[in-house]
């Protein structure tokens, strides 16, 4: 058995599910939010929610970078791609996110723009080196997990003296988004959080302590294997049962309290906080995103191309905003699975497989009752 298989031991998973079922109080409802889209995907991919008792509900948070990116920034990326001479590079999922009137980077490419899907920022640098006569822009998205890779690309571009490379920076920060959720009007009916393991591997577990200490929510940082998630759910239920609210780190094989110092230093060298940033679903959240430092302004596509980011309202019928806040479940949205499907997404949550709606649509069984106790 290799290392990953050990975390997918099905017998152990079933035993753990049984333990969870014996530990939940039948008279109470447990609403737990997994912040991170990677966790949403694991839950759906393995059908884990059906192993949980009926009164344990997982609420899918906004931790999917393409889902929270507002239409205005996609529209700005599309406008960039349409400029003559520009090669726009981006991670795959972003290509299908709709901006306005169904415009996407994919359709922009079909109409003749040079939009390229890359797997690594190094690919974008290589393209810039191969095409010195073209402007190569990397459409950077992601939480703290993908930010170090962008920082590496920028410092590399400076070292190589690349004149034709820039970054359209849309990197966002997790802790301010979690604060944003808690501060949303009406709040959220969540009793505990599953903390994002990969984000924490970069920034450490310490930035999440305040959600337990100040806001009073139990939080368990965990990994992305099925057993990681079940274990985190059990730990949260135990805390809720006894009225505790502390941060627990279930992902110690990867996450330390202080995080990855090298990555953090690199992020700090290249990026600085924005005053605020527009999130789909959360609105403007203060100090929740990064931009390039003035030192690196020549690599900042927003400055280089004098980009303006307009407000692009979400589709009228789309309730991604409420879904991202955990206010409604995906299937409670009127257009879920009808006008809005993964093939033709109206809202961003339906685009990425980590998006709450796409994960629910793609994997949730229809009409199959959940195992365990009756719903309360």
């Amino acid at each position, binding site marked *: 058995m*290799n290392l*990953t298989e050990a975390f*997918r031991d*099905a017998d152990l*998973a*079933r035993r753990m599910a049984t333990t969870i079922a014996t530990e939940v109080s039948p008279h109470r409802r447990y609403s737990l939010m997994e912040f991170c889209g990677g966790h949403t995907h694991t839950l*759906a*991919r*393995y*059908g*884990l*929610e*059906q*192993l949980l008792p009926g009164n344990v509900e997982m609420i899918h948070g906004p931790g999917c970078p393409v889902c929270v990116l507002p239409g205005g920034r996609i529209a700005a990326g599309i406008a960039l791609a349409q400029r003559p001479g520009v090669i726009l590079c981006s991670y*795959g999922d972003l290509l*299908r996110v709709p901006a306005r009137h169904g415009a996407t980077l994919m359709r922009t490419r079909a109409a003749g723009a040079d939009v*390229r*899907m*890359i*797997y690594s920022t190094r*690919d974008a640098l290589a393209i810039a080196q191969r095409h010195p006569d073209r402007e190569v822009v990397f459409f950077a998205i992601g939480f703290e997990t993908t930010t170090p890779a962008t920082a590496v690309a920028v410092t590399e571009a400076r070292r190589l003296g690349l004149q034709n490379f820039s970054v359209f920076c849309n990197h966002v920060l997790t802790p301010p988004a979690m604060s944003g959720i808690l501060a949303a009007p009406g709040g959220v009916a969540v009793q505990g959080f599953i903390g994002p393991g990969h984000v924490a591997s970069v920034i450490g577990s310490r930035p999440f302590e305040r959600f337990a200490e100040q806001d009073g929510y139990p939080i368990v940082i965990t990994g992305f294997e*099925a057993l990681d998630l079940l274990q985190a759910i059990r730990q949260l239920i135990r805390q809720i049962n006894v009225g505790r609210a502390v941060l627990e780190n279930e992902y110690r094989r990867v996450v330390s309290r202080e995080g990855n110092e090298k990555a953090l230093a690199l992020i700090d060298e290249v990026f600085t906080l924005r005053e605020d940033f527009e999130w789909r679903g959360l609105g403007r959240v203060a100090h929740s995103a990064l931009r390039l430092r003035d030192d690196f302004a020549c690599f900042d596509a927003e400055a280089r191309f004098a980009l303006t980011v307009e407000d692009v309202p979400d589709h009228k019928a789309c309730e991604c905003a409420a879904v991202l806040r955990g206010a409604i479940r995906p299937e409670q949205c009127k257009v879920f699975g009808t006008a809005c*499907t*993964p*093939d033709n997404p109206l809202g961003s949550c339906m685009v990425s*497989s980590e998006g709450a709606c796409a994960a629910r*649509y*793609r*994997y*949730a*069984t*229809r*009409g*199959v009752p959940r195992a365990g106790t009756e719903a309360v």
Partner: protein
Amino acid sequence: MKGRRDFFPPLDIGAGRIELGHGSGGRATAQLIEELFSAAFDNDWLRGMNDQASFEAPPGRLVLTTDSFVVSPLFFPGGDIGCLAVNGTVNDIAMAGAKPLYLSASFILEEGFPLADLHRVVQSMAVAARAAGVAIITGDTKVVERGKADGVFITTTGVGNVPDATRIDASRARPNDRIILSGTLGDHGVAVLSRRENLHFETELRSDSAPLHELVAAMLAVAPDLHCLRDPTRGGLAAVLNEWARQSDVGMIIHERAIPIRPEVAAACEFLGLDPLYLANEGKLVAVCPPQSAEDVVRAMRRHPLGRDATIIGEVRADAHRAVEMETAFGGRRLVDWLSSDPLPRIC
């Protein structure tokens, strides 16, 4: 009077390239056909240099299929566009339970395409056709300007014959039928991806490209009443099962633990964020058969080299929603939907 015979140098297969003239219909075209295509596929029909091939119609029903191949890259571990173009069409015929007989091959070549690469592709087609026992008996060549194609696109059309009694059809899946898979999923998809320009990664994995008609014949010998048969190419196993569910108006349930997947395919899927159920295969088949013959079919398949890992992976059931579901290794269930969009363009 003796005809004038100009000196015409032979094709420079080592260093030459496709030129627009090779598609003009003139002497360059004739030379390309003669020295490259006919030389490799060599048979009486091609030697006749007609614009068509005629043959006796065999008994039973005729089966006709056509498929275009635009794979990128052209050469990948375990195969190339050439063997794919032969095996792909042979398999489409075989999935009717038919014996493949003849192929046509049509080439769209890009100006500047190295003759050495074309030669390699054509040789690969010849080897695959011989191995499958089919003859490539007619064809066509067009050349487009540089930039208007991607090296070479190939379309093959195939003819086969099937006994009147064999009725394999996408609409014949019935509740309680068993779903059988001939081997590991995703080998071809990952092998091709591993050689993508922007994604190069090291793997021992090879494409599974292979002709499946003999395996099908072995299955039909023990279970003449096979209900459905398909090679899960583009869209993978998920697409095949969803198509059958729709055509047969049934649901399907498959069991994750039963589905054979190589560790290297599983690993590649994890780091690329892909699902092996959606990956293309070029030498695997999935079948639906009545429950009473399922074990016999699996045993017969395992005796054939291309069916060594054959196994029952699930069942057909009555379901008004026509849902395809998978019981996960953890005992949970999830929907196996159609592939939406295309995570891996041009894999076959």
